[in-house]
């Protein structure tokens, strides 16, 4: 099983296959609108705009499992992202990332990169997974890791090192 075996639902309700992101470098993030880390949207968007032409895709998955910090529906989330942070990277429907109802994509990501305590559980909003062009989950970043720092790891993957 690889990352391209999963289907995801976009924030406007369209079901798409992860195969559409084949040959791209992916930064997959569970996001929330009312979190202390929410300003990271600005850094993620800047990273995406800087490297999207060279194949970087930032994928945002809203999740309400951490402190009830993503209470709105998809329409509210989309409006917030575009108005406040001018987000243009792909956003997806709200999902769960932990527990029995966790989205299969996140079950895969968690088992591929288990994180610092080795449990695999996502600790909070804005945990990030960096995926290479061949679908390998290369790195997992804590919510405190800023997008600006992650940019350094992205550069060799998109071929500008």
């Amino acid at each position, binding site marked *: 099983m690889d990352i391209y075996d999963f289907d995801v639902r976009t924030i406007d309700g369209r079901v798409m296959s992860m195969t559409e992101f084949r040959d791209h470098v992916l930064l997959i993030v569970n996001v929330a609108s009312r979190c202390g880390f*929410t*300003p990271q*949207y*600005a*850094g993620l*968007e*800047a990273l995406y705009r*800087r490297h999207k032409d060279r194949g970087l895709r930032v994928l945002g998955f809203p999740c309400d499992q951490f402190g009830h910090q993503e209470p709105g529906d998809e329409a509210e989330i989309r*409006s917030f992202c*575009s*108005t*406040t*942070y*001018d987000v243009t990277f792909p956003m997806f429907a709200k999902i769960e990332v932990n527990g029995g109802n966790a989205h299969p994509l996140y079950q895969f990501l968690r088992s591929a990169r288990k994180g610092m305590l080795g449990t695999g559980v996502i600790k909070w909003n804005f945990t990030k997974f960096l995926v290479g062009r061949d679908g390998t989950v290369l790195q997992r970043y804590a919510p405190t890791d800023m997008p*600006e720092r992650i940019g350094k790891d992205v550069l060799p993957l998109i071929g500008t090192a």
Partner: protein
Amino acid sequence: MRIAAQPVAASTPLADTALLAAALRRRTEALMAEAARLYAVDLSGWCVTLDLKGMAAGRVQLLMRRVRYNLAIAAQAPELFLSITVPHEVAHIVCHLRHGRRARPHGPEWRAICLALGGTGERCHGFGAEPARRLRRYVYACGCRRWSLTSIRVHRIRRGLIYHCRACGRALRPAAAEAAANEACR
């Protein structure tokens, strides 16, 4: 000079949040392009976010290359905000690029740039605004006067930071402790 807020009728297209956000970004980009031409500075790679809360209408984060606007204040008087706050913030960026840290944040260099970009050259806006939070204040004292410190500074002191009075040089202590120390010295 303080500028009186002029509420815009609800029917104004700019009253719509999404339109206002787009207008703010367009205006900022246009002014940056103008400033880049006028002052021969590189203003590429800046982003605009509308996540600022509290009393400030706008703020520039130089290291993050980010301009932040307060959407709640902007919505009160969109046209004024576009014509006053946007040049104010863009002028901060240009001032930094041209003069570095030598220039004071609202000094003559900044003011000249702000005026050239069509702003008012004023430091403060006159829009109505509520603080994002109200901080508790504590009374501290040095050797010569009493100080009203916010909980932010008090927490820093409790973690070990020491603030000194610039006049008498003594460390600031809680007012009650200072009074007790003076009493013991007598």
